[in-house]
């Protein structure tokens, strides 16, 4: 299921790659033009690897294998100090994570930074949390 979704996402992205109008960051007001039609598939996000507030945050295309059936793959994974942070892409291209699930931000990097802020130094647990 996640693989199918990822393949579909990659295929759609490839098909749209030549179209400069495809943007990952649709403004909320853009939805007015979007009803009833499928949302444009956002571009895959940019990889990142940096130290933010003393913690290593990384974002990269999902490497196969580490996938858990409880969560849905966005095709992209985010890690904080090497531990995977569950992230999700919204239809408008915005992102949320498991520690900030009701507050969309524009990129996975912003979601990782928001998670570091939220964690206040606490270790992230591998999901599913228990």
């Amino acid at each position: 299921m996640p693989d199918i979704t990822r393949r579909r996402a990659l295929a759609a992205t490839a098909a749209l790659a030549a179209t400069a109008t495809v943007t990952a960051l649709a403004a909320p007001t853009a939805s007015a033009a979007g009803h009833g039609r499928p949302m444009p598939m956002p571009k895959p996000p940019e990889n990142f690897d940096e130290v933010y507030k003393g913690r290593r945050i990384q974002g990269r295309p999902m490497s196969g294998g580490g996938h858990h059936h409880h969560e849905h793959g966005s095709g992209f994974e985010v890690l904080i100090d090497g531990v995977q942070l569950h992230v999700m892409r919204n239809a408008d291209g915005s992102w949320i994570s498991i520690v900030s699930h009701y507050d969309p931000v524009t990129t996975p990097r912003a979601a990782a930074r928001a998670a570091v802020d939220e964690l206040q130094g606490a270790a992230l647990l591998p999901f599913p949390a228990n």
Partner: protein
Amino acid sequence: MTVRKNQATLTTDEKKRFVDAVLELKRSGRYDEFVSTHNEFIMSDTDTGERTGHRSPSFLPWHRRFLLDFEQALQSVDSSVALPYWDWSADRTLRAGLWAPDFLGGTGRSTDGRVMDGPFAASAGNWPISIRVDGRTFLRRSLGTAVRALPTAAEVESVLSMATYDMAPYNSASDGFRNNLEGWRGVNLHNRVHVWVGGHMATGASPNDPVFWLHHAYVDKLWAQWQRRHPDAGYVPTGGTPDVVDLNETMKPWNDVRPADLLDHTKFYTFDS
């Protein structure tokens, strides 16, 4: 018949009975099963795939049934208890009785977000956070910091006036009542309240904070108000929609209840007003 009351009107005895029943569910382990279920749906509901608990038309009936399960569990401990609701458009400050030490306790301290008073403070010893995404085992809140203001009555009214229950693509990009109430679009009602409370309420494991139930009981009441306002508008979609729970399809995790079975709350409870 269960009557759900505004939390601001509860007597001292009603607050105590509610809190004691919640603590008993926690002690017995049943509480954390609700937290797990919610977290699992939060992680698996996606805009482009199967979606049931959130970002979809069934957000409202799913949470109605989830709250019914929780309320029945409370009533198995104390049959006098009903879920109260928090009208956050009216009780919108940190001084509301909701956050007093005899009810849910207040905001977290600034250093680490730890709730320091009330029955759910870690120091009271009765509220370990076991279903969690990070190492912290104490209840956290940060009332009114990530977003300054709770929704206003006028904002609620603007959403209640929307005549269509939900619209294609039936996800976080939809227009219509459901998504504007859920908050992925527009003035943002439900989502914003999670963010305003902060701490655990901002995460997928949001039921770790007992205010989750009072928040959702009010969201559920707004659905009932919307139905009275728009008697000719019904739940949609009504059939054949991939990945989305249609009116007469059963919902996970129960698999024996349909949105159609949950539209009329008076079969289960009424409201004080």
